[in-house]
């Protein structure tokens, strides 16, 4: 089931949202870009709400970006430092969540090493909204929304049109190529679903051991010839080799992966001048991308980080909103 709006809902997976639901997040985020450009970067919409950020797995940018987003909306943020919490004493996830909810928390931003953790937590909570900030190798929906938003804005800028109000039109029909470790990448899973819902043609390529056989269920198809695909792509999405999930064991060596699938200067020249290259970060220079290419003007890594805040503001704002009756004003 996919909803046409995130209002009052959980964000567990891109599958939860229809194309209209995705477009709504992008449009609301445009309003928050303006807020982030002000000298006082704070608006009172979530004043008095409490958002808990629960990161059971290391993260720098996602955590900082969600917490910044919550604070710019005037919500109070409780940040659970797992290393110094009762989790270390052996408390189960369920008990931790019950404690959090007993404190009257309105939303939980959860990152966990287990796939499906956010879904499980959403069944335990009674009132609080659950935002998946990455669960194992399953999904990372906020990152995919950031990537859609960044690509939409980059394409709008290149065509000299306004991205605001453009819905998913600038993404429809785009050829998206996702390269690397698809199997272990929650970003890839969310991206495939999101780009496909936006009407893009999604192709994935990588070592045979790191590309799942069933990418069709995410709306993508497998590609074979990297050089040919690079020359045709409108959007090139690079992924990190996930050493902590054992990506390295699926290829003979990182050097071989880098030679066959890394974007070096020669491959970068194959990519069209008006293409957009994304990377969810952190980049490992010399593996999936050479150091020179990492600074290529077509790379939008900085914009992706910057756009993280307005997108996550939009997610928190919508999830904690209620759709009420229209009043006469």
């Amino acid at each position, binding site marked *: 089931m996919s909803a046409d709006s995130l*209002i009052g809902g959980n964000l567990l997976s891109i599958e939860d949202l229809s194309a209209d639901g995705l477009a709504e997040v992008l449009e609301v985020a445009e*309003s928050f870009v303006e*807020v982030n450009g002000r*000298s*006082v970067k704070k608006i009172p919409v979530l004043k008095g709400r409490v958002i808990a950020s629960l990161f059971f797995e290391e993260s720098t940018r996602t955590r900082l970006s969600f917490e910044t987003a919550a604070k710019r909306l005037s919500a109070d943020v409780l940040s659970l430092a797992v290393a110094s919490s009762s989790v270390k004493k052996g408390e189960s996830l369920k008990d931790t969540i019950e404690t959090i909810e007993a404190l009257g928390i309105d939303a939980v931003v959860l990152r966990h090493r287990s796939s499906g953790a956010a879904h499980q937590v959403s069944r335990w909570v009674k009132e609080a909204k659950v935002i998946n900030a990455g669960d194992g190798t399953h999904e990372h929906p906020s990152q995919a929304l950031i990537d859609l938003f960044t690509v939409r804005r980059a394409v709008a800028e290149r065509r000299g049109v306004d991205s605001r109000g453009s819905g998913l039109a600038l993404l429809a029909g785009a050829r998206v190529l996702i390269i690397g470790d698809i199997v272990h990448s929650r970003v890839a899973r969310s991206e495939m679903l999101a780009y496909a819902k936006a009407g893009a043609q999604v192709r994935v390529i990588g070592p045979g051991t790191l590309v799942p056989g069933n990418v069709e269920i995410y709306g993508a198809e497998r590609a074979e010839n990297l050089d040919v695909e690079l020359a045709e792509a409108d959007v090139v999405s690079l992924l990190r080799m996930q050493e902590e999930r054992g990506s390295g064991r699926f290829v003979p060596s990182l050097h071989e992966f880098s030679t066959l699938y890394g974007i070096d200067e020669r491959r970068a020249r194959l990519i069209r001048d008006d293409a957009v290259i994304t990377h969810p970060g952190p980049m490992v220079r010399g593996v999936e991308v050479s150091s020179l290419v990492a600074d290529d003007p077509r790379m939008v890594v900085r914009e992706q980080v910057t756009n993280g805040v307005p997108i996550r503001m939009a997610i928190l704002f919508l999830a904690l*909103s209620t759709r*009420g009756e229209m009043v006469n*004003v």
Partner: protein
Amino acid sequence: MANRERRHTRHPGAAFVVHAEVMTADDVARAMTRMAHEIIERNHGIDDLVLVGLQTGGIELAEALGNRLAEITGLAPPVGSLDVAFYRDDLGLRPVLPEAVTTIPGDLTGKRVVLVDDVLFTGRTIRAALNALGDFGRAASIQLCVAVDRGHRELPLRPDYVGKNLPTARDEMVDVSLDGVQLGRMVPR
């Protein structure tokens, strides 16, 4: 016309039925010219003046007022727009209007700001606008210009410039554009 249509599409199950034409396009134009002169008189010119139209009904009025001030003084005041959706106290009671844009021309510190809206009703939009403007600097003064004051204030606010004082019933709706002002009711389809 765009504003009028948009406002009405926000009531999917109801239609706006007019029962009185309150002002014609000429009446609105004359009121705008008068208010432009009042603004110049009150502020001794338009130095440091910034017009801010409230989304969505105040935008075309602020632009028209800016044009009128430019015709009279030969100088065009900066015109901005403000969406107060994120500052309202009835958030959740109203749908989000993501197409509305906030563009404030520069820092407002030391400026004389004239807020422009179509209809002054409960005053809650203006309260939200005052809170929002505080985030853009400390204005020297903030004045309020409305095309129609329809009464029923719930907050201690009054306008500085009024196109027309229009006594209304609470359940009536006032539609304002440069094409004229109409009084009507929302009637279920």
